[in-house]
């Protein structure tokens, strides 16, 4: 039980201090689309419709193209 009470070095610390650790937001795969969960802006509100266009979703996600854009919500 020599590990108990001992400070263990983090295995991911080196890539993190050198900026090589990949986070979810850093991953971009071919054909990848972006999604966002939209919730009612008021408590206990009932969603009747949304105003985003289906066509934009079909065209390859909210941003389209290869560049990452800010999500709509």
């Amino acid at each position: 039980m020599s590990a108990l009470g001992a400070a263990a070095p983090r295995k991911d610390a080196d890539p993190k201090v050198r900026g090589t650790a990949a986070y979810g937001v850093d991953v971009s795969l071919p054909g990848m689309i972006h999604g966002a969960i939209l919730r009612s802006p008021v408590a206990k509100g009932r969603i009747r419709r949304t105003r985003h266009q289906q066509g934009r979703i079909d065209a390859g996600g909210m941003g389209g193209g290869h560049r990452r854009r800010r999500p709509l919500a």
Partner: protein
Amino acid sequence: VKDVQLTLNVNGRTRILEATPAATLLDVLRDELGLIGTKEGCVEGECGACTVLVDGRPVDSCIFAAHSVGSREVTTIEGVGAVEATPLQQAMIKAGAVQCGFCTPGFVMTLTALLAENPSPDETTIRRSLAGNICRCTGYSQIVDAVLEVSGGER
């Protein structure tokens, strides 16, 4: 809006690319040059996750216009410890100064600039220099410990 050609000196390399006139340095680094070690946090110059050096001075690249960089030298986290971790980075690992790590590249850039200017800062100077970097895991003490370790200072 049409893209405009842009020449940037990044980590010792000259890069030529196109970007909209409003593109931020962060946009260009991450989306055009693929230098994704620089992180996008608040996108309003508060959190410091996007910190890079422009002629050795830390700036928030999320609110720094790419076209205003001119001929100045940009250094990103990819340009610090590219082959192996620098003494500061090694001290951060050893001190437990890394948790989720999302803020870490920004902290490394700010502290690299500090140590270049002042190799032996005291604790107050270190903490003041970090006023523009926020760590939501809140591991500030270990980060300060790491700098003191390389600067030979005392708490």
